[in-house]
C-alpha cells in the first residue's frame, strides 16, 4: 500500500452561520475500510459527507487524497470518487439506461461492465428502456446503485443508501460493498441500520470516537 493513506482528514471544522457544526475531526481511512458515520439527526452526517466530496469547503483543516489536498489534485480525486446523496439523481423523463449513460459520462469513469448488465444485476432487467416516472422510488434507488457496479471509482461516499430499498436490495448492496472493499476500495457511508458486514469501523460524529462493530 502506498505510504500515505487513501483518505485522511486532519483537524476538519465546519461552521454554518457562526454556529459551529463540528470541529477538530481527524480520520484516516485506507483501502479496504468501511467507515460508518453515526450520529443523531442534525449532527452533520450529510455535511461531513459533502465536505469529503468537495462540494462544501471546510472552515479549517484539510482533506487529503493520497497525501495531497483535494483542492490541489481535483481531477484525480473526482475521477476516483462516487457520491450518492439523499436523492438518486434520476431524471424521470429519461429511461434507466439513458440515466446511467449520462451519469457515467458525467463522472468520466471507464466502466467495468456494460450498463445493461448492471441493470440486470440490480434487478431492473425488464425496466431499462421505459421512462423512470413509471418506476417506484425503490427502483430509482436501484438505478443509482447500478452506478456502483459500473463505476471504477475507489472512493464511495453513500448518504443513507438503504432508504427505500427492499430486503433483496439490501443484500445486493451488502455484496457490492463487500466486493468493492475486497478490491481495495474505500466506503464512507452514513446510515442508521447495522451493517451485516465484519470489521466495519463506526465513527460517532458527536463524541468523535471510533469503535469496531
Amino acid at each position, binding site marked *: 500500500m502506498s505510504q500515505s493513506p487513501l483518505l485522511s482528514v486532519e483537524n476538519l471544522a465546519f461552521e454554518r452561520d457562526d454556529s459551529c457544526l463540528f470541529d477538530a475531526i481527524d480520520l484516516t481511512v485506507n483501502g479496504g475500510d468501511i467507515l460508518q458515520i453515526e450520529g443523531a439527526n442534525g449532527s452533520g452526517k450529510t455535511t461531513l459527507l459533502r465536505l469529503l466530496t468537495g462540494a462544501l469547503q471546510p472552515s479549517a483543516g484539510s482533506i487529503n487524497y493520497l497525501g495531497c489536498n483535494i483542492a490541489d489534485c481535483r481531477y484525480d480525486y*473526482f475521477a476516483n*470518487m462516487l457520491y450518492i446523496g439523499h436523492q438518486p*439523481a434520476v*431524471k424521470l423523463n429519461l429511461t434507466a439506461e439513458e440515466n446511467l449513460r*449520462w451519469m457515467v459520462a*458525467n463522472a*468520466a469513469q471507464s466502466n467495468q461492465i456494460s450498463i445493461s448488465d448492471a441493470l440486470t444485476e440490480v434487478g431492473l432487467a425488464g425496466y431499462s428502456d421505459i421512462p423512470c416516472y413509471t418506476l417506484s422510488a425503490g427502483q430509482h434507488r436501484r438505478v443509482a446503485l447500478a452506478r456502483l457496479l459500473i463505476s471504477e471509482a475507489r472512493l464511495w461516499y453513500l448518504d443513507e443508501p438503504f432508504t427505500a430499498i427492499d430486503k433483496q436490495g439490501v443484500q445486493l448492496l451488502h455484496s457490492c460493498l463487500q466486493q468493492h472493499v475486497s478490491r481495495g476500495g474505500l466506503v464512507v457511508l452514513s446510515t442508521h441500520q447495522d451493517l451485516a458486514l465484519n470489521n466495519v469501523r463506526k465513527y460517532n460524529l458527536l463524541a468523535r470516537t471510533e469503535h469496531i462493530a
Partner: protein
Amino acid sequence: MARQMNSGFSAWLRRDLLLAYRRRGEVASPVLFFVMVSTLIPLGLTPESARLAEVAAGMIWVIALLATLLSVDGLFASDYQDGSLEQMLLTPQLLPLPVLGKITAHWLTTGLPLTLVSPLLGLMLSLPGAGYIPLICSLALGTACLSFLGAVGAALTVSLRKGGLLLTLLVMPLYMPVVIFGTATVNYAIDGFNWLPPLAILGALFAAAVALCPLAVAGALRVTASN
C-alpha cells in the same frame, strides 16, 4: 485527457437535448408566448400598419427577451430538485464545461425556435422588408447572450423557493445592452444604414458572455450547495 474534458460538455448537452426531446410540447411554450404577446401589440396600440412598422423591431426584441426570461427560470430548477445538480458539482471536469453544455442546450431549445419564428411576427407587425435578415441575425446572437446572462440569474436563485421574480430583477439590468444593440441592428437596416456595426457589438457581447458567464454560473452553483 481531451476526451474527458469535453465529455462533461457533450454529456450534459446530449442529456438536456434528450430531455427536451422527450417533452417536445414544452419546447413550444416560449414560441407560443412569443406569438401570443405579439398579437397583443396591435390590440393594444393600433392595427394600422404604418405605425406598427415603427415599433415592430423593438417590440419583437422585447417580447423575445421576455420569452427567454420565462424559460431560463427552469434551467437548473429540475436538476436541483432531483439531485443531479449535486452530481454536476462533482464532475472531474471543470464546472464551467457542463454549465456550457446546459446553456447551449437551453439556447437550442428556446433561442433558436424564437429566432426561426420571428419573421412570421415581422409579417404580423408589418416590419419593413429590409428588416428581416438583420432581425434573424440579431435574434440568433441576442437570444444566445440572453441565455448566458439568464443562466447566471437562474444559478443564483435556484435554491430559493420563490426565485422566479427575483431572477427577473437580477437579470433585467444585464439584458439592457443586448436589447439596445439588437434593436439598433434592425432599425439601422430599416433606415437604410449599414447594420453590421451594431451586430458586431452584439457579437462582442456574446463573446464576452460565453467567456465569463459560465464562470459566474459555476461560482453561483457552488453557493447553492451550501444554502
